C-alpha cells in the first residue's frame, strides 16, 4: 500500500531521526511512503498566532500538491503539521471564498480530497490485525513508559472530529500493547510542554515541563514515549534544567513511538539513530537487554 508522506521541516532537520524511523517502521509494516513533492512549511503556531490568512494558505499549498498526487491518504507524523493541515482543510471546506482566494495563487489547486492521517492512525489497524505483533517479535520487557501525547495530536482550534479520546487518548497504548508493553497510567499525557516558550519564555516552559516530569517520575516510569517532535525535543533537550528546577536527579529517555517499535522489530540502534538523544536513550535499552 502506498500513501503520501508529509515530513515537515523538523523531520528534515533537528528530528531527522523521526523521519528515518518512520520510513523504516512503516516500510516494515507494508506501508510505502511517497514524500509529497516540493512541500513547504505549514507555518506552525507562528502563523496561527500572528497571521490568520497565512495560517491557512501555507498548509493549503501542500494540500493542493497532495490532492494532485493521485494518492488517497497522507500521513503526517509531526503533531503541529498534522493539526495545521487538518485545520486548513476544514476551514477551506466550509469557506468557499477563502478557498478560491488561496487557490488563485496555487498551481495545484486544493480540492479537499486527501485524507490526513496521524502516524498513530496508520499504525493502529496494523496492531489490530496482528501484523504489528508478527513483525515486532522482540518483547520489550522491563520498559515502563508513560505515553505523552501533548497538545496537537488531539486538540484543534476548530471542531474537527478526533480519532481518539481527547482527554485520555489510547493510540500509543494500543501500539505498545501489541509489543507486549503495558504503559503506565498518569495524569499529564495531554498537557502542554510549553512548545516554543522553551526558547522565548524559558521560565514558563520549565515550570510546565516540571509538572509533566514530576508526575512521570512519581508514577515509576523509566521513559517517555511520544509522537510529537516538539514535545520530544523539549522534554529531551531541557530535561537537565527541568530536573534541577524540581530537584529530581533521575533522567528519563524520551522515545519516539517509532523507536520502540523499531527496536521490537530488531532494527539496530544506529539505523534507527537512537544514539541521537540528549538524555541517553541507548543505556536503558541495554540495561533491559533489549538490544
Amino acid at each position, binding site marked *: 500500500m502506498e500513501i503520501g508522506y508529509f515530513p515537515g521541516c523538523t523531520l528534515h532537520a533537528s528530528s531527522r531521526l523521526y523521519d528515518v524511523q518512520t520510513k523504516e517502521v512503516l516500510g516494515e509494516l507494508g506501508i510505502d511512503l511517497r514524500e509529497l513533492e*516540493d512541500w513547504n512549511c505549514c507555518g506552525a503556531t507562528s502563523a496561527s498566532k500572528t497571521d490568520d490568512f497565512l495560517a491557512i494558505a501555507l498548509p493549503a499549498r501542500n494540500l493542493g500538491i497532495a490532492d494532485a498526487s493521485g494518492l488517497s491518504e497522507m500521513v503526517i507524523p509531526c503533531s503541529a503539521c498534522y493539526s495545521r493541515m487538518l485545520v486548513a482543510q476544514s476551514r477551506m471546506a466550509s469557506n468557499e471564498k477563502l478557498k478560491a482566494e488561496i487557490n488563485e495563487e496555487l498551481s495545484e489547486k486544493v480540492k479537499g480530497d486527501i485524507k490526513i492521517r496521524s502516524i498513530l492512525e496508520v499504525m493502529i489497524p496494523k496492531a489490530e490485525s496482528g501484523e504489528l505483533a508478527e513483525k515486532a517479535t522482540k518483547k520489550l520487557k522491563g520498559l515502563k513508559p508513560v505515553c505523552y501525547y501533548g497538545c496537537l495530536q488531539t486538540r484543534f482550534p476548530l471542531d474537527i472530529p478526533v480519532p481518539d479520546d481527547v482527554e485520555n487518548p489510547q493510540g500509543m497504548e494500543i501500539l505498545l500493547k501489541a509489543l507486549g508493553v503495558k504503559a503506565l497510567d498518569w495524569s499529564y499525557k495531554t498537557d502542554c510542554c510549553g512548545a516554543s516558550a522553551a526558547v522565548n519564555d524559558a521560565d514558563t516552559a520549565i515550570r510546565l515541563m516540571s509538572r509533566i516530569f514530576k508526575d512521570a517520575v512519581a508514577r515509576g516510569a523509566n521513559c517517555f514515549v511520544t509522537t510529537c517532535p516538539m514535545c520530544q525535543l523539549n522534554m529531551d533537550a531541557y530535561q537537565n534544567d527541568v530536573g534541577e528546577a524540581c530537584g529530581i536527579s533521575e533522567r528519563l529517555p524520551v522515545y519516539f513511538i517509532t523507536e520502540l517499535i523499531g527496536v521490537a522489530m530488531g532494527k539496530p540502534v544506529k539505523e534507527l539513530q537512537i544514539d541521537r538523544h540528549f538524555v541517553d536513550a541507548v543505556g536503558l535499552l541495554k540495561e533491559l537487554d533489549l538490544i
Partner: protein
Amino acid sequence: MTAPVLKFESETAQSFLEEVMSRSGQNIIACYQCRRCAAGCPVGEETGYVTPDRLIRMILFGDREKALSNDLVWKCTSCYTCGTRCPNEIQTARITETLKQMSKEEHIAPLAPKVAAFHHAFLTSTRHLGRLNELEFMGLYEIKNTFKDLWHLNFKSLYNEGISQTKLGLAMTKNKRMHFLIEKVKGLSEIKRLYKKAKKKRDSKEILPDQG
C-alpha cells in the same frame, strides 16, 4: 491577587466585541463564566489575574486597552485546552491569537518582545526558503534579541540568552541533531505570492471571518 473593578465602556464595547468575535470566530457572548477554561489553563499560574474567562469579561466590558495587552495574550501557548473543555465551545486560544494580531496592527509594543521576535523570525525564514531553516531562524531571532538588549543596555539578559543558546547549540551538535543542509522550495514564487496577499489583507485591515 484580586481583579480590578471593570468599567463598562458602552460606546466602544460593542464594536470591539464584534470585531473580536468576527475575527476569532468565537461566540464570546455565550460565556457564562463557569471557569473550566481557567481550571485547565497550563499557563494560568503565570498570567496574574488574567485567566481565559477574565479575558472574555474584559472584551465584553469593552476594556480594549487591557484586553489587547496582558500576560495571557502573550503567554498563551495555543494548547487549545480551554476551548476543548468549554461547555459553550468558545476557543479562547483563538481569541488570544486574534488579540495578538490586533495589538500589532495598533502598534502596541509587545508585552513579551521575545515571543513577538520568535514568530517574526519563524515566518521570515519560511518566506525566504519556503521551508523553515532552523539555523537561519534562530540566527534571525537572536539578532533581534541582541539588538533589543543592547539598546536597553540589558547585559544580564544578553548574557543569559548567550549562555542558554550556546548550551543548546552545542548539545544539538554533539547529538547530531544540527543539520546544515539548506532546503529551498522550487515553487517559492507561490509562497511569496501568498505572503504578499497576507500583507495586503493586513494593510487593508480586511477581516477574515473565522466562521463556518
